[in-house]
């Protein structure tokens, strides 16, 4: 950078200070080009137009103050080094700034031209170094992920072959076998299933680490998911003479979460709990609300096992953690299950923790956000501080013409909801998260800020767009209807929040009334085939007779 001019963007509103800095820069005799602006907005514009080598930044500007100023600059141009020139000697603020990535914090009155020149030069070098480190880190992460994904794919091919021939023998397709041979083969199959589970966990953990897990929150009942998990895990628990109990607070409202992912978490936790519980013990899966936190439901899995030591508690959610006492006598997996649980819960905006006393069992608890229609509705039905005049509830029903291919149907209705989202105005209409199961007919609701007459236009648009999807057209019947929401005048003293809540309640009632027949038969097909497959393979891993006749 010695023969190239250093381009300095000076963001400083005090003309005297600006002149002083310019003077210092000229004195330093190094080659600099200075652009000076006196407002943050102009600085941001200049950053976009002509990125400088370094930004010299005053914190108190007409349009921004304090820490906000450097945060804005760095959010806009994370790769440009920032040196703060401040009027006040505030060590706390200086440290905070450096922690957040500012390269230096200098006091205006104190600096000599040499110091300023040096600070700028080192800032540029440090920033370049950081950037290349960051690029290398990302490349390595990407390489590692590709490697793992490749390895797990390559491992699957021979594993599939072993699995196929073992099941051919076990199913008697190659002649009958002596009981002892049969037993040995079952042991082989059990190990194959364990290996399969490990490969799957490896890939899932890799995805979690690189942020590639997709979560599709819907409006679902945690109670149904718990029932489902318990039903899936009872056979395994039964073999170990461990009971599974369920405790459901029936006042729990619906939650906003991805049913497949939450089922995965429940199955992982329950499977763990069963492993650590001795015969005659029991596992309790519970969901409840607590008074101190009205926005979340608390889900817990409690065992009567031997508990977790305080040391282990701190590590248990980390990747590859394995209970040292268990490794010798039992193959349990890679130690990725709880790590995956934590990442999945985090993706839902919840948290997970464990409480345990050695010898007394353990309780794993996680939180999930409640489904709040009011929260989702507020941005679209409130306009200029008031509830909109007209609101219409549009109902879009997709009835599958054939109930054969489950995976395909899911694909079809997911495409449909994507299409729906493109048919509405984001600032005044809302496509509600899908409700309930994915196996049968799907009903979607759109809250539209319009009157009944105009909702006809929207319905025509929705129908037109959905019918352009060939697959949808051939696999489902489409029924679209609209009902206005009766907006009775609300008490004058009702707060806006309360008014929104009233409308949300009304809409909820309308939805409940219109889907009543389905909602009476809960539990069907919440989870996709994937998590069911996972549960089945867990069952097979620990099952003593994994032989399924086909």
């Amino acid at each position, binding site marked *: 950078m010695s023969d190239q001019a250093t381009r300095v963007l000076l963001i400083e509103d005090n003309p005297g200070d600006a002149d002083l800095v310019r003077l210092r820069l000229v004195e330093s005799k190094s080659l600099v080009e200075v652009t000076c602006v006196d407002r943050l907005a102009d600085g941001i514009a200049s950053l976009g137009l002509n990125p400088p080598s370094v930004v010299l930044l005053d914190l108190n500007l007409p349009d921004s103050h304090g820490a906000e100023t450097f945060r804005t600059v760095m959010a806009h141009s994370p790769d440009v080094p920032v040196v703060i020139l401040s009027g006040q000697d505030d060590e706390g603020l200086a440290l905070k700034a450096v922690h957040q990535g500012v390269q230096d914090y200098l006091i205006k009155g104190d600096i000599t031209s040499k110091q300023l020149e040096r600070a700028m030069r080192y800032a540029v070098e440090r920033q370049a170094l950081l950037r290349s480190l960051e690029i290398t880190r990302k490349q390595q992460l990407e390489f590692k992920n590709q490697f793992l994904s490749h390895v797990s794919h390559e491992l699957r091919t021979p594993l599939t072959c072993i699995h*196929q*021939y073992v*099941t*051919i023998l076990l199913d008697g397709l190659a002649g009958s076998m002596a009981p002892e041979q049969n037993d040995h083969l079952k042991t082989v199959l059990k190990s*194959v299933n364990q290996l399969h589970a490990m490969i799957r966990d490896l890939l899932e953990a890799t995805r979690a680490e690189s942020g590639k897990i997709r979560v599709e929150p819907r409006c679902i009942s945690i109670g149904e998911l718990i029932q489902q998990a318990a039903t899936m895990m009872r056979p395994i628990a039964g073999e170990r003479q461990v009971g599974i109990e369920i405790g459901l607070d029936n006042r729990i409202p619906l939650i906003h979460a991805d049913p497949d992912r939450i089922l995965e978490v429940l199955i992982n936790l329950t499977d763990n709990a069963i492993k650590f519980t001795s015969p005659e013990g029991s596992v309790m899966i519970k969901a409840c609300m607590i008074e101190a936190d009205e926005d979340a439901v608390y889900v817990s899995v409690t065992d009567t096992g031997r508990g977790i030591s305080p040391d282990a508690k701190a590590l248990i959610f980390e990747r590859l953690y394995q209970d040292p006492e268990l490794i010798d006598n039992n193959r349990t997996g890679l130690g990725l299950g709880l790590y995956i649980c934590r990442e999945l819960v985090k993706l839902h905006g919840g948290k997970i923790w464990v409480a345990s006393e050695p010898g007394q069992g353990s309780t794993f608890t996680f939180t999930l956000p409640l489904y709040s229609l009011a929260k989702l509705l507020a941005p679209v039905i409130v306009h200029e501080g008031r509830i909109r005049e007209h609101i219409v509830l549009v109902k879009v029903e997709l*009835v599958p*013409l054939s*109930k054969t*291919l489950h995976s395909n149907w899911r694909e079809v209705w997911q495409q449909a909801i994507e299409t729906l989202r493109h048919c509405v105005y984001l600032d005044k209409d809302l496509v509600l998260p899908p409700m309930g199961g994915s196996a049968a007919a799907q009903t979607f609701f759109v809250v539209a800020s319009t009157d009944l007459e105009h909702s006809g236009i929207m319905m025509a648009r929705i129908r037109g767009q959905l019918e352009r999807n060939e697959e949808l057209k051939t696999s489902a019947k489409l029924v679209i209807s609209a009902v206005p929401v009766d907006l009775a005048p609300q008490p004058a003293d009702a707060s806006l929040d309360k008014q929104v809540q009233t409308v949300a309640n009304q809409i909820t009632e309308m939805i409940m009334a219109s889907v009543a027949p389905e909602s009476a038969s809960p539990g069907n097909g919440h989870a996709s085939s994937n998590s069911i497959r996972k549960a089945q393979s867990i069952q097979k891993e620990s099952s003593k007779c994994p032989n399924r006749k*086909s």
Partner: protein
Amino acid sequence: MPKPKILIVDDDPDLRRALRLRLRANNYDTVHAQDGYTAVAVAQKEHPDLIVLDLGLPAGDGFVVLDRLQNIDTLAGIPVVVLTARDPQNNEERALKGGAAAFFQKPVDNAELLDVIRASLTDSRVPGMRPS
């Protein structure tokens, strides 16, 4: 009624043999192909009732095969069940959009695979009479 005929496409001869055993034991006839090019040729010659298709194949991968099948009128209606070691997250959607009837990752649960094969066959054998 003659036995339904299934075309097994996989480049691993051991797996082809295993699938053949499994499907024949369940009263299906099978024909085979080891690469993408042969798969389309065998499909044209044999007119199978269903195709079990691997994705990672030499001479035209599974997606190429799907695409070719869709573009040959006499083959476009044959249900295709994808059976691959590849990751569903990057391939399932693409395969289903490309015309596959179902997607399975290896190793597959035999009972599940047979269920879907059975369902796909009943669905496609009586065109226009889909059970609702």
